């Protein structure tokens, strides 16, 4: 009995030690602070804020999530290993769309990489990524213009991945379908409630002896013969459809101007409306190692 107790205590301790090691292995990858995570502290405060707003607006419009990351070094890993592990930890991009991109700079190693999420590998190919790194960012970095190198790189990435869904805004889609769902629920309540309370028989039930049709007075209802008399014909009273029909255009109306607003007042409201500064969560995109690496 005593031996067993000792054994289980030992196993327990081993498990604890293993857990500590597991935590240690992950601690090498910092958590993101926002769309821009300047761990190497090489970007100016103002610039970081502006870039963050730009990326947050871009996410609003296209749902694509771009993470800009600077670190001192990726040692002991290569930049490819570090960046895929970062991607696996952070998961920028939406679930199912896998539309995340990481632009990673290791300042002391003078290496950089664009890590492309699965869903964007078609728009931002390895060759394009390589050109962005070598032809757009590198000359600026060599000249010591970190901020402008990062801006130009981000702009090039945005252009590359805007082609597909720039016009169809994901957020407005969500708003639209959400509105439709609510409408359908309301319509459902009206229909079911209407049927239950109505003195009419729904869907061609048995009404007055002489009347059969979609919406006819129920037998014995006070509407009975009086309202429709003794007309021997099909009667259709379209109660619900007009209500639904009148609701639909108004719903599509509500989100259109909202979408336009985003463009105009983005510089004013994006900081607060997104709670973008520091409060973002990446969605859960998956990566399979697409992209390119370079150095400067």
């Amino acid at each position: 009995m005593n031996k067993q107790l000792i054994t289980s205590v030992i196993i327990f301790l081993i498990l604890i030690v293993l857990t500590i090691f597991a935590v240690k292995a992950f601690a090498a990858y910092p958590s993101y602070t926002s769309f821009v995570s300047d761990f190497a502290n090489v970007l100016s405060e103002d610039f970081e804020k502006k870039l963050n707003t730009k990326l947050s607006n871009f996410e609003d419009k296209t749902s694509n999530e771009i993470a800009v990351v600077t670190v001192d070094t990726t040692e002991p890993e290569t930049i490819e290993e570090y960046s895929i592990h970062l991607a696996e930890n952070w998961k920028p991009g939406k679930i199912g769309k896998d539309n995340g991109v990481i632009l990673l700079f290791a300042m002391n190693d003078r290496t950089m990489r664009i890590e492309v999420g699965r869903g964007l590998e078609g728009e931002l190919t390895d060759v394009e990524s390589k050109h962005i790194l070598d032809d757009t960012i590198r000359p600026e970095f060599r000249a010591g213009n970190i901020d402008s190198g990062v801006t130009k790189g981000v702009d090039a990435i945005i252009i590359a991945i805007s082609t597909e869904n720039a016009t169809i805004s994901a957020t407005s889609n969500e708003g639209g379908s959400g509105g439709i769902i609510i409408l359908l629920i309301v319509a459902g309540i009206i229909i079911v409630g209407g049927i239950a309370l109505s003195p009419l028989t729904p869907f061609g039930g048995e009404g007055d002896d002489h009347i059969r049709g979609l919406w006819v007075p129920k037998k014995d209802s006070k509407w009975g013969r009086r309202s429709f008399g003794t007309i021997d014909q099909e009667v259709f009273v379209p109660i619900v459809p007009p209500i639904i029909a009148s609701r639909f255009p108004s719903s599509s109306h509500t989100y259109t101007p909202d979408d336009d607003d985003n463009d105009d007042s983005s510089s004013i409201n994006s900081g607060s409306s997104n709670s973008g500064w520091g409060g973002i969560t990446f969605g859960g995109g998956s990566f399979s190692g697409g992209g390119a690496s370079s150095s400067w």
Partner: protein
Amino acid sequence: MKYFLITLGIIVVIGLMIFSWIAGSYNTLVTLRNEGQTQQAQIETQLQRRFDLVPNLVATVKGGMLQEQVVFKAIADARTRYAGAKSGTPDKLEAASEYQSAIARLLVIMENYPQLRSLDTVQDLMVQLEGTENRISVARQRYNESVRDYNHARQTFPTNIIAGMFNFEVLPLFESVGGAEKAPKVDFNK
């Protein structure tokens, strides 16, 4: 009679527990094996991409590298061997590694032909190859992780009893060849 019922009840309960344990372990093993096979399919997708790219690269550079026929032959041989190996076997993975080291040799040799390397088509092909190699190494790492989980469950007590009963085979790890895991490096401005 009363004792008989109690005994029967206990036997039924124990029987149910054993059954649910067997079912649970069996399902865990199946899940882990499926995961491994999914990851293996990922690797093979990327390997296929490599097989589609390399002939283009070879065709582009072959004319300028007439005295390097050995490496082209090695690439062709490894390709044939890979195509002949059965999917999911250690043989297939070995053939893939062999192919990789043949490509790595080609890329090293190409360093001696700067005029070839500077061709736009060659550069683009090499960037694509570089990306593919990186994808293969990511897929390989994920495959090895899931295979390790599966093999571990398969070999440790008490799941190993179930694994033995239902004939769950060991899945091979996909190790990279020494020196070949480094992806080729390309630089557009050189």
